[in-house]
């Protein structure tokens, strides 16, 4: 947004205020989680706060209904509440689906394992058990001895070569909140790119991963 210098500061203030509300934070956490190929850090505090706010809003809406407040007002609050609920649920769901997809990979990389919430870790362990049991029962137990691992193709493999891993070099579309200057892409190339505020870039996830993690860049 390139507005005139005078009025932009007020607009910027408003923007920055808006972008730090929990609703916005939840939205961007949700978007990042949806777009990132790997699982991100669990936004524990944010989820906690959002759930408290949801509860407050539920109580408020109920009070309004009982007090006979204008139905239109109530329904607006209700919509807002529903949307927040959707964001929260979808956020948690997206994470679960990622855990399901990469469970064996997440289990063996401590760094990714620690990104899960306690409940998610429990879920992941149980889930891994379920799928392993299923694979064992359907395929592995019926194969020759040296071929029964669910992580390796055969006993001759030196490392786990059958674990689905997130594709970190896949491209993502991202937007920076502010001007970041020349940024070195993490692919050994000499190329520097200028990351401008509010411009859209399609970059390999791997190279902007630190920016996503520090919250400087949002995925879209």
């Amino acid at each position: 947004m390139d507005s005139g210098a005078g009025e932009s500061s007020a607009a910027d203030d408003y923007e920055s205020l808006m972008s730090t509300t929990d609703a916005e934070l939840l939205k961007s956490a949700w978007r990042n989680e949806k777009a990132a190929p790997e699982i991100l850090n669990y936004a524990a505090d944010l989820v906690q706060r959002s759930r408290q706010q949801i509860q407050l809003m539920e109580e408020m809406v109920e009070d309004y209904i009982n007090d006979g407040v204008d139905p239109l007002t109530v329904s607006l609050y209700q919509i807002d509440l529903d949307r927040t609920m959707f964001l929260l649920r979808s956020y948690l769901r997206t994470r679960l689906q990622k855990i399901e997809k990469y469970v064996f990979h997440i289990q063996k990389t401590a760094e990714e394992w620690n990104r899960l919430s306690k409940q998610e870790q429990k879920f992941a362990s149980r889930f891994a058990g379920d799928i392993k049991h299923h694979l064992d029962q359907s395929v592995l137990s019926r194969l020759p001895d040296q071929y029964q691992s669910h992580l390796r193709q055969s006993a001759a493999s030196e490392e786990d070569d059958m674990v689905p891993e997130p594709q970190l070099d896949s491209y993502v579309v991202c937007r920076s909140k502010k001007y970041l200057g020349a940024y070195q892409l993490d692919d050994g190339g000499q190329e520097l790119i200028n990351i401008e505020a509010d411009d859209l870039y399609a970059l390999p996830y791997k190279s902007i991963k630190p920016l996503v993690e520090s919250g400087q860049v949002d995925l879209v």
Partner: protein
Amino acid sequence: MYGRKASELVKEFASVEHGQIFTFNNDLFAQVLEECDGHLLHLQPLMRKIQEHEDKLKDKNRSQEEIGTSEDEMSKSQAEKTLIQNALKSDQFGALVHHLSLVRNKRCLMAYVYKRAEVIRSLGWMVDSVLPEEIQEKLSTSEKEYFKNHAATLQSYMAELDLHLTVDMIPPKDPYIKVRVLDDIGEIALSDQVANLARHAIMFLRRTDAEQYITQGQMEELTG
């Protein structure tokens, strides 16, 4: 040709539209497993022969070093060595072909089961812990068990969080939607009212209330 059946299996899975599922192909699946056993039967004697050849080669080398022999004998033993080496090579390649075929078959079988499990899970999001009869028929015993286990795992996660995750699958537009009831559901306490959900009734419900009935096919949303 080795590996053809396994690839058929995978192709069969890939040929259905995304998110749909075929009957578990027990026949073909068992045939591929049999093929794996066949490969092992070939593989084992080959491995043994490779071992024998290697031992023999070692012996030859040792005897060559130990006794300084005449040139005549030297060339004879050299010829024998080449012979053994050739046999060794052909057995090694034979073993490799069987090993790789086995690995490939394994990967195809795993992919088949794994991808099906993915579809089954995605169905789990749409229906609440009970699969309709038509789908049940298409699953293998292990898959049915897996679905139940997975549903239980998910349930326990949601219970711990005290948050229902299987509703709200699409972003909400309006808190209320118009639905037609397709089945006699009876008197139900919804989140904001007690409603008599009789067949053919058209009503205005909270979307979160209606969603579970819609996914189970007991209601339809009326749009427009």
